[in-house]
């Protein structure tokens, strides 16, 4: 089996954000993360492209993505003081959307930094 190689991939597990990792993958999982440290290797090898979880879960039952988005929007819109929190393990692009979400809702916006 030949593995595909991605050069200079970026690890986001810790604040070092090493951008020199060489990833060997077969489109389903990453088999090797060269240059990454133990933490980074574990991070890369633990995530796969398999469908391990349902698209969405609502009140304990499996649901479709569309349904979950619609219900999330309704719940957030109905709330008087919704909280948008986290944003550690996500991209800046998603973080910007979160800032817009909190703004649109008139809610609270906070990250891990405040802990």
């Amino acid at each position: 089996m030949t593995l595909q190689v991605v050069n200079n991939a970026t690890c986001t597990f810790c604040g070092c954000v090493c951008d020199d990792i060489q990833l060997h993958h077969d489109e389903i999982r990453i088999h090797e993360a060269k240059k990454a440290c133990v933490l980074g290797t574990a991070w890369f090898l633990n995530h796969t492209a398999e469908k391990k979880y349902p698209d969405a879960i609502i009140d304990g039952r499996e649901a479709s993505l569309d349904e979950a988005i619609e219900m999330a929007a309704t719940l957030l819109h109905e709330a008087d003081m919704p909280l948008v929190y986290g944003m550690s393990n996500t991209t800046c692009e998603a973080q910007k959307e979160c800032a817009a979400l909190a703004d649109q809702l008139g809610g609270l916006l906070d990250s891990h930094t405040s802990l």
Partner: protein
Amino acid sequence: MGGKVTCTLGEVKQRADFIVYWGGNPAECHPRHFTKYTIMQKSKFLPRGRKDRTMVLVDIRETKSAKAADIFLQVRPGKDFELITILRALVKGQHVGDAQIAETGLTREVLDDLVQRMKTCKFGCMFFGMGLSMTRGKHMNSAALLTLAAELNAFTKFVAMPMRGHGNVTGADVIMRWQTGYPFGISFNRGYPRYNPGEFSTVDVLVRGDCDAAFIIGADPGATMPQPAIDHLKRIPTIVLDPHVTHTSRLARIHITTAPQGIAAPGTAYRMDEIPLPLKPALKSPYPTDEEVVRRINQAIAQKPFWLPEGSQPQMLNAQV
């Protein structure tokens, strides 16, 4: 963190001949920090690499990082602020009493030597971790250390930098500063951003039970927060976006699976020195990205009536790209 005396890791790698780690354990938490950016690198200005550099570790216990250090200072727990204040006084040549020094668990000789080294190095850098910023004194400790770094510039080049934890927390700070003017703990409930940690920070909000819905993304408060906060998350409708079904997902009303950043989702992440780096995802995920899901939720909410009366709607963040 506006106005902080800092630099990029590239400068540290090229020039820093004196490196202090304060309240952090890079050997175990940031394993490649030594080899990639700080003590192990050879450079034009420090051709002998490790031999040209001095490393000091200040911590309350002897961690694995102490093995890498030339000097290890074991400060008494909760006395970081006192120690920084003493160093600031010694740097300025002011008198410090023996009792004050004894309180920190260190000796005058050690501190005099440290101050001497700080003043005479060519380029000093202090990295401070959670051991400083999350213990007694919290942000006052960080502020004191940044002031010490600023004051040392009367003698030599000196900077300080926080050792940020995992993931893209630095990115969250930067994005919030860019979009709202504040780094965290923000409320939009008057239609414009207001900043007040303690009032608007998540743990306090949850423990007091102030919010009536929660949207959690890229975090697992269900595993890390104090129990009263978790209890409140159970009471209110909670929505979680995560690549895995987490502790928080189990107590949430809605969980949406998303693609993991950097592995299957493209985008940008910030390094601890606030350098943005592009992500290079290797895999294609069957799930959508966080960005896509939050954007769709935003669009769905935009269809509904605005929460303020008609005509009083302020300019929204996404309208000013």
